[in-house]
């Protein structure tokens, strides 16, 4: 199985000289299609740095980020933007939904940006899968926290990306809802053959994960 997203010997330093802070040290990571991978670590361990580098939002001090075999760091800003749009789905801590668009319109926006007609059936199927058919015309502020994160999952899946990056997707949820969201992520990874990477600090949520990486003080270890 080839890796969809691979990080090789990644180092990331902030600052220079003796004030330099090493956020990631020789980090190696990979995820393949159909895998649900968790990265677990306390706050300040380098999780966010890992995500921003994996998404091409920051360039590493050294090392390579390969998305479908292409090195991200060598791409232009514009190409990375297109990469993020087409190949990476995001689920952020709090919701990454647009407040003035209804659930369906959040998906329509993706099609508008790609200049293609609205994929109505795909939207309906995904919303149905994540039990959101009832709230398809609601605005984000009319949804519960769990619903919002489920919409974010649909939004991330809708564009059919190679990999989904989830940054503490359960941060604002209680335990039963957190478990529900994580179970759904696992199911989507396996069912739709997606590579899903979840960053979390919550030990209880990693039961369904295929691979778990632990990160502490910038050092990543595969469990």
């Amino acid at each position: 199985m080839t890796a969809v997203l691979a990080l090789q010997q990644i180092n990331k330093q902030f600052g220079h000289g003796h004030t330099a802070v090493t956020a990631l040290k020789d980090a190696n990571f990979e995820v393949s299609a159909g895998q649900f991978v968790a990265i677990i670590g306390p706050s300040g361990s380098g999780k966010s740095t890992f995500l921003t580098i994996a998404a091409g939002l920051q360039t590493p001090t050294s090392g390579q980020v390969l998305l479908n075999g292409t090195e991200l760091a060598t791409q232009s800003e514009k190409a990375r933007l297109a990469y993020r749009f087409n190949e990476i789905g995001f689920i952020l801590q709090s919701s990454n939904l647009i407040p003035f668009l209804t659930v369906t319109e959040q998906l329509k926006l993706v099609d508008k940006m790609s200049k293609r007609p609205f994929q109505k059936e795909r939207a309906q199927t995904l919303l149905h899968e994540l039990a959101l058919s009832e709230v398809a015309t609601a605005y984000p502020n009319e949804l519960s926290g769990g619903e919002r994160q489920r919409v974010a999952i649909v939004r991330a899946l809708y564009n059919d990306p190679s990999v989904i990056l989830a940054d503490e997707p359960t941060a604002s949820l209680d335990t039963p809802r957190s478990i529900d969201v994580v179970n759904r992520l696992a199911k989507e990874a396996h069912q739709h053959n997606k590579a899903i990477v979840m960053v979390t600090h919550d030990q209880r949520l990693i039961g369904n994960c295929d691979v778990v990486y632990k990160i502490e003080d910038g050092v990543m270890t595969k469990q």
Partner: protein
Amino acid sequence: MYLGLKEMRHEKLRYSLLSGVLLLIALVVFMLAGLANGLSNGNREAIDNWQATDVYLNQNTNETLSASQLKLADQKYIKGDQVTPLATLSGTLRTDKNRHKTTISALATSRNSFIMPKVNSGHRINGRNQLLISDSLKAEGYKLGQNVRLGTTKRTVKIVGTYTSSTYMISPTIYTDIATLNRLKDMPVTSGNQQTINGFVTKNGRFSHSSHGSLQHLTMTTFINKLPGYSAEQLTLDTMIYFLFAIALAIIGIFMFVLTLQKQALFGVLKVQGIGTKHILAALLTQSVAMSVIGIVIGLGITVGLAQIMPAGLPFVINWGQFGLYSLALLAAAVIGALLSWRTVANIDPAVAIG
């Protein structure tokens, strides 16, 4: 487009308020422009009707018709199509026992001059002491066949015809011949080519000799700009209008900037998802163009409505070409105002949306 319009629909209050501000600016622009046109028209309507290109005055005056004195005989210095003498008197037209009293601009020329207006009722001037009056004076109660006086003199003249209303120096015009006007002015010479006049008007005029007495040539544009108070008036109103364009730009710029600052987190999220600066700016542009179009269209509507109910004394003229130009200027101000947020949008770091 999609993002910008959806947001406006969701945030109706915020964007209607801003459209309202732009509407008020557009309304003031159009009202000022209408008034400027009205005043301009009031000053020069009669002159525009002449369709002449050149004016000749005495060079020892400050290019002002009423201050210029020439003799009819000076016409020999000028060559041109239809050179015609012009004399003016600003005074009061009144009927017997002052039943009607109106401030008018009296214009005198030769009886068959091209600047003599076409008669709508009555007949052309064909004898001494005859007068043509503007239709607006007829509406005020002056009648054909009536004997009227001009200023404080006891001499009377007879109204023999009317013509389509025109104004000069904000007053309704009356036309007569040179000799009649000179009689009304109590001039010593009231016949022959030694009569006093104020100037000559012609089309495609030029001096016939290199020496041309005390005559000075003015183009019609210069002549109009030198009408007493004309330039100052127009410049004042035009300056106000130009300031309003700057204000519109500032308002849009500031509003869009503040909204952008408020939405930085959202724009960060959009950028993380691969929706870049270009699309965000397009949304801002869509919004400011939409708001200014709404403001301009409603502003135009209100201006046209107000023009219908304005008192007759208020000089107000709608010039659609100019209004279109000013609309475009407001639109341009809105576009530039929105683009001022470009740097802010471009500098939003998508990484802030993570962690």
